[in-house]
């Protein structure tokens, strides 16, 4: 508990719109130790980005609203912190890498100025010194420091993402949230950027939450994995546990959708159906309409997260009943 750098408890975030209330995150629990990296996996709309923004308290309000829950960072509840305190944390202790490097850099500022900005805000250095430091950061991510006077449009996508990483790491944050950092990049650049992130993470001893929908990236970079579905964590395990023994039918479905090099399969088995409408989530287990193993009870009762051994958490009635019946014996 004490060495947990981040503890999210029972987080619930809604977007209140005219068309109805979107339940983006429903009772989410995550904990992360120092230096650990957690992969947050899920489909589009599962609430991954919302979770990340909640940690920084950057949910656009209105329409977004954090209804419930606690987010402890270094033992302090961020949801009770003042805006002033949050500003001090953002970029300094927790920083974020955004999905699309094409749009997350200011087109009319030089990259040097943009890296220097965070340093200037948090370390109280003057312009010249923060610029010096910005140049160091640029070298660190493998871009010659002479290019600090160039504008973002003069860089390629991969280099822009390096700049974004340089901005995120410029103040040695304790926690780095990377929101699909490689989605907008091609595969070779993806590998380079991931390597870079891993190296820098080790170097600065930063914890990381990596948001992605690519299990391959998770396998390469993370220690632990949380699978998200309809705003909930449905499975939480170490990398090895999840890849060798996925338990939740949804996780199994995800693996079934990936071509396997070793087995000869005629067709992939994708998960049928689509994500449920978040304004109108199904009763009981939110996954039951798509679940190949759904039973009558799944429509009625909502599962709770249970430990199936070695901190492998699953939120599924299949396992709940097993453990209950075991308990009864």
């Amino acid at each position, binding site marked *: 508990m004490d060495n947990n750098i981040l503890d999210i408890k029972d987080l619930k975030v809604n977007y209140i719109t005219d068309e109805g209330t979107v339940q983006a995150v429903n009772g989410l629990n995550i904990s992360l130790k120092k230096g650990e990296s957690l992969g947050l996996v899920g489909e589009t709309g599962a609430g991954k980005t919302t979770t990340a923004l909640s940690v920084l308290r950057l949910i656009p309000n*209105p329409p977004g609203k954090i209804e419930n829950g606690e987010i402890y960072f270094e033992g302090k509840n961020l949801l009770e912190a003042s805006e002033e305190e949050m500003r001090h944390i*953002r970029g300094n202790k927790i*920083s*974020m890498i955004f999905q699309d490097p094409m749009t997350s850099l200011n087109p009319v*500022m030089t990259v040097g100025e943009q890296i220097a900005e965070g340093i200037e805000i*948090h370390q109280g250095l003057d312009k010249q010194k923060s610029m010096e430091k910005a140049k160091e950061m640029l070298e660190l991510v493998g871009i010659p*420091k*002479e290019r600090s*006077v160039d504008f973002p449009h003069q860089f390629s996508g991969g280099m822009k993402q390096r700049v974004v990483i340089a901005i995120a790491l410029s103040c040695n944050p304790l926690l780095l949230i990377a929101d699909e950092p490689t989605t907008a990049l091609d595969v070779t650049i993806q590998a380079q950027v991931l390597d870079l992130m891993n190296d820098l993470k080790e170097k600065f001893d930063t914890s990381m939450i990596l948001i992605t929908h690519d299990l391959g990236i998770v396998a390469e970079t993370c220690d632990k994995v949380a699978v998200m579905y309809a705003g909930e964590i449905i499975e939480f395990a170490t990398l090895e546990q999840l890849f060798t023994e996925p338990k939740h039918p949804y996780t199994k479905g995800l693996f079934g959708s990936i071509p396997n090099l070793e087995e000869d399969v005629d067709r992939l088995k994708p998960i049928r159906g689509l994500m449920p409408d978040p304004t109108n989530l199904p009763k009981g287990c939110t996954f039951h309409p798509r679940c190949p193993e759904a039973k009558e009870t799944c429509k009625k009762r909502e599962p709770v997260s249970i430990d199936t051994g070695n901190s492998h958490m699953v939120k599924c009635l299949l396992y709940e009943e097993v453990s209950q019946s075991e308990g009864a014996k």
Partner: protein
Amino acid sequence: MNSDVATKNNASTKTKSKKKRSQWSEVWRRLKQNKMAMAGLVILTILVLLAVFADVIADYDEVAIKQNAAVRLQGPSKDHWLGTDNLGRDIFARMIHGARISLMVGIVAVSIAILIGGTLGAIAGFYGGKVDNIIMRFMDVFLAIPSILLAIAIVGALGQNLFNLMLAIGVSSIPGFARIVRASVLTVKDQEFVEAARAIGATDTRIIIKHIIPNALAPVIVQGTLGVAGAILSTAGLSFIGLGVPKPRPEWGAMLSDGRQFLRNASHITTFPGLAIVITILALNLLGDGLRDALDPRLKQ
């Protein structure tokens, strides 16, 4: 291209002010490629020079306002390049002295409008919700009054002098700028880099000044140059109905107004000031368009 890279590399090793200058020299380089904008700039420069050196070219008291019945209503000649008006005053001399007023009123009025309107628009666009509603409804009320009418009312209420004229024209164009800045801030503020700036802990003020305004500037600059043109027109209009600069100070609109009685026999009295207004406005518009293209780093080839 090679020399371009070289200057950039040089600039980077020097101090920050040097680097800023290289950024502006880049804008200047792109502006130079636009022939129409350069034409506009040349015309404007000539006008500004004429206005600045008006006293050297033609003495204000002796030539521009001293009446001389002997030479009234003369057409263009060697002595009077653009002819004389109904009171025998040299039209060229009056025009270059009038340029001073027109240009000054135009620039000062637009500065007032950009400063006040821009601030209001930026606040409205950035914060949205109630703040936006209050500011913009207030602007709508302003907008409902025809701007020339508003200017007439302000000059009428405060009294007729140069400062009140600038204030009146400036105030009456505030809503236009507020709307443009707000619209442009709205498109910028939802972009990811603004969120990214928030995620590194920037304050609202910093985000508005460093991230939003520079990105929202292009339409404002274009509107600004057009606004100077509009302000010159409004000044001319106000002078035309006798609410502009007090006589006998020469002003283009007032000259038009004075000359209209003689339109049939001495049309040059109205033609030349009219042409001056047209040319100035054209030049400003050309320059405005060119500046918009040059200031946008994304359009760089």
